[in-house]
């Protein structure tokens, strides 16, 4: 398949990156979208976003990833961006126990502001810092199972599992969407996915057409 232009895609999935300040959200984003890591990455003020287009099951998916400020103070602004998100990567720092303890609060935020069907993955970041580990992988796994989340330990610095984390989220969203699309097809004999891209809402089986990407 020829490489598609940035605005040519089958699906647009909006994903939010959340978690405490300093857990490495912005670097996870830059690793995934630009294969870049910056030790001096500054705090995120409000929200920023980046995109990456990739292939999942022969479909072109544009992942629009919203990086949010971690500090409580910015919560009102950042939570507005949960709207329309179909996936979330909830990040904690394996060397800072408190960031793991706050996972529950972040889940509460998602439950309060995001779609109830949002696909959530929890990521224990900075797993390269083994000697400073304060949260074991088992603890992470246990919490993920209890909360019904996918889970991976990641390192944005060493590019460990970052691709896999987003790949898992996107795959899962695509799976849900295609199942819903199939069901919709069966009932309405609908045509294939629109050529100009579809923004997916996990609670909406048909998706909404993205009007801004027509050129």
């Amino acid at each position, binding site marked *: 398949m020829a490489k598609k232009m940035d605005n040519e895609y089958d699906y647009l999935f909006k994903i939010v990156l959340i978690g405490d300040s300093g857990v490495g959200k912005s670097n996870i984003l830059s690793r995934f979208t630009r294969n870049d890591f910056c030790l001096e990455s*500054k705090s995120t003020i409000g929200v920023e976003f980046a995109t990456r287009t990739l292939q999942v099951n022969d479909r072109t998916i544009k992942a629009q990833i919203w990086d949010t400020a971690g500090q409580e*103070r910015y919560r009102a602004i950042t939570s507005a961006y949960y709207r329309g998100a179909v996936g979330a990567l909830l990040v904690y720092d394996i060397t800072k126990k408190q960031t793991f303890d706050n996972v529950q609060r972040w889940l509460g935020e998602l439950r309060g502001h995001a779609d109830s069907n949002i696909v959530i993955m929890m990521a224990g970041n900075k797993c390269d810092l083994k000697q400073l580990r304060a949260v074991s992988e088992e603890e992470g796994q246990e919490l993920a199972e209890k909360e019904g989340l996918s889970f991976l330990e990641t390192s944005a610095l060493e590019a460990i599992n970052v691709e896999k984390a987003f790949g898992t989220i996107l795959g899962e969203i695509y799976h849900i969407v295609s199942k819903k699309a199939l069901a919709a097809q069966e009932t309405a004999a609908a045509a294939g996915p629109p050529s100009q891209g579809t923004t997916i809402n996990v609670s909406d089986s048909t998706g909404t057409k993205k009007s801004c990407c027509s050129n």
Partner: protein
Amino acid sequence: MQFAMLRWVVQIIEVAGGRWTIWYEDVGRWNAFAVIGFTAIAGLALLGTLIVTTSRRGGLKSPWSQRRRKKSLLLRQWKNLFTSDGKLRDSVTFLKNVRSGGVDHDIRHEVWPFLLGIYDLNSSDVERNRIGKQKRKEYKNLRKKCRNFFKAGDINGVKIKDAVIGSRESNDGCISFMPENELEAKQSISIEGEQSDDPEKLLLDSDIGIVEKENSDITHVDTKSLDSDSEEEFPVIYTPTVEETELQNVKISHKRDSSKIAEDFTIWQRIIRLDAIRANGEWITYSPSQAAISEGIAYKHAEEVGLKDYKHLQPCRIFHAARLVAVLEAYTVYDSEIGYCQGMSDLLAPIISVMEEDHEAFWCFVGFMSKARHNFRLDEVGIQRQLKIVSRIIKFKDAHLYNHLEMLQAQDCFFVYRMVVVLFRRELTFAQTLTMWEAMWADQAAIRAGIGKSWGLIRLRAPPTEDLLLYAIAASVLQKRKTIIERSISMDEIISECNSMAGQLDEWKLLDDAYDLVVRFHHKIS
């Protein structure tokens, strides 16, 4: 023929200048008339363009236009501005010069305390010496308080009983630091800020629909308790009960402000250290003495403030980070309503690099924050007000662009959020930022000192404004109008576009454009 044409042009100028004289001239021959007529029409069109360009600025040229821009204030000029007893002989010239050309980096450390209100523009050497000593002592006591708070906070959390609120600005708007004998010991943590009588201080924009108190809502620690020599008097630290410990930390409540601070000193302490070690080294080339700091001194400072995870940094960066922590922590105690919010370190870092003494950096930061603190308020009133101003400027200037933004549901201008919060710090380089801030501070200093009204024509057409930066921010968006409209980018992409302005902006062009907007719309905005 040439003579006739000249007369034509002269008369056209007269017409264009509003003097409606009869301009008919018999040149004898119709063909010549036709040629001249054609030339005249072309000339008129050109003049019309010139007139429109001039009149939209009310005949004033921007102090930031390439032609009129002053050179930055130099040491020699700066010294010449003072009388023998060390008083500024001409505040107006001083502020106009700073506003238009900025300050030479070598004298910034001397100039900024005036711009930021630590020193009154009319102060003498003697007064400044006295204030300097007092400020040093107050800062020292704030740090002492920090050490005690945070030592305890590390373990159990802290309860502050003696944080007291007071108005930090006097009626003339100059930052005043209450003398010890005027302070009363208070045992309260409620806000009892004084209401300013000055209408300028109460920014009320009924059209915008938001009333924001610009002053007198600073929560800061009673400086008398700080000045006390008795260690027993402060801080009051106690061992929390189990329940309180489970609550993590004690929240500070405010009598007047219904919004609770959901954050506390322990969180601020942690985030401050996090942000301090990731401050970039852009300042290094501008501050050779701090860049050359020895490893020993850097580590000593780092240990004193309990810096963490800094071993990977070079000594000057460790030193810089430690200073950031010291000053930001002191600020959380001084203004516990704001405490610490991410982005504040962006505002402090340039000050730290210019002011070599921590207490000077701290009070300059306090001066800066007297306006900028509203960007970090928990209730977001300050930020909403500013976004609305940017939105209104765009609406007045470019209805087409505004309609386009409305269509995208982006007329709230949230896409300039970061620019507003950290005052262009993320979009401009270190040097550009300082120039921009100095222009803004000069305007604010002129307003504070009430001298904006004596700026001649500027008073009528483009008075100094508290919101200069917002006009510059609107200008930066207007510079992108083509991309926004023609490429039909979405609301999300506008955010991306704004966030990627970094390194692409010209600070003088922004100020020049901002000037145009101030001239045209300041009376509608403020």
